[in-house]
């Protein structure tokens, strides 16, 4: 009896550890770090998706991004979900959502408050509304900002010319 309790507790601890290992962390980043990533001279295509937990259409778009990320596995494409949530809602809003949806795309929270400067630095054609998706491939000299939610097929169509 005791041994089975011990065995069960051990199993629980293992499960908890496994959970911890897979649960995604969300790093808080500032613009210079993101800028470096966005301007890297590389043949990898980057798909940056600007979203927030309070943005309904963003949440509706997430499954399509996740699915496309899976669909292009093995190709030189990297996805990054950039949360524009307030930094004080990282623990209360962002992490719970990232974990409950088991997001596999990496997620960062962009902690910048001067949006007027930031938005033009990211892309001058962006008005600032969410969601927005920015696809960049430096080697192909290609860059596109799409300022509306996209479904899986639309995303794939947008990504294809970059590959």
């Amino acid at each position, binding site marked *: 009896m005791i041994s089975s309790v011990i065995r069960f507790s051990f199993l629980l601890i293992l499960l908890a550890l496994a959970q911890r290992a897979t649960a995604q962390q969300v790093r808080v980043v500032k613009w210079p770090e993101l800028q470096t990533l966005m301007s890297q001279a590389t043949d990898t295509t980057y798909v940056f998706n600007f979203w927030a937990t309070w943005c309904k259409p963003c949440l509706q778009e997430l499954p399509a991004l996740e699915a496309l990320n899976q669909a292009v596995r093995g190709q030189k494409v990297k996805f990054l979900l950039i949360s524009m949530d*307030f930094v004080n809602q990282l623990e209360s809003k962002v992490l719970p959502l990232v974990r409950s949806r088991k997001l596999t795309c990496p997620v960062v929270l962009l902690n910048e*408050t*001067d949006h*007027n400067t930031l938005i033009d630095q990211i892309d*001058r054609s962006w008005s600032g509304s969410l969601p927005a998706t920015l696809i960049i491939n430096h080697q192909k000299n*290609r860059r*596109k900002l799409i300022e509306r939610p996209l479904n899986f097929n639309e995303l794939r169509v947008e990504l294809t010319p970059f590959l």
Partner: protein
Amino acid sequence: MLLFMKTKLNPPARLLAGLVMLLTLGAGQQPVQNAAAPLANPLGYGIGDAVANFRLKNVDGRTVSLADFKDGKGAIIVFTCNHCPFSRAYEDRVIALNQRFMSQGFPVIGINPNDPAAYEEDSFENMKVRAREKGYSFPYLADETQEVARAFGATRTPYVVVLKREGDKFTVQYMGTIDDNSQDAGSVTHRYVEDAVNNLLAGKPVGLNTTKSVGCAIKWKTV
């Protein structure tokens, strides 16, 4: 593109230019150095444009029109709503703007452009509740047809347009965000709307007349 915004185009030409702009953006051939200049609202009013009168229902049950403000020096139009965290973060600052500038001839006019079918929190009943709870000292109008938001080229909340009145004509002097820190009012360094209104009160040029911000995309009714 600033040139475009300053050029006076008649409405069809503006629409056409906006469409061309959208098509160009859609072509996917933008250079990596993003040289394209900003255009927050290709189909809305630009700086210097005269604004058409509007009549909308206020939370007190009365109808408010822009022409009602013919005795002031202008108006601070704030597209806002109940549900949006950015609007909520700015709510006290909007109330403060009205307290400060109404007496000086620039009252705040709050307008909720959202489709309440998308966000129950933005229904007319909930607008009344919010205005009462927070003691709004300014009109809070429901843009049920969303025509006013479209005319102003609003895409998100909160979105502010400062108008100057000359005779019975109101012209656009500033469009954009309230200040440079949505998260923390205490850390603001640039108060764009305040600066614009203060400059107008002093008879000076507005200076920085267009700014951007992240905000909640306005939910348009499906046609």
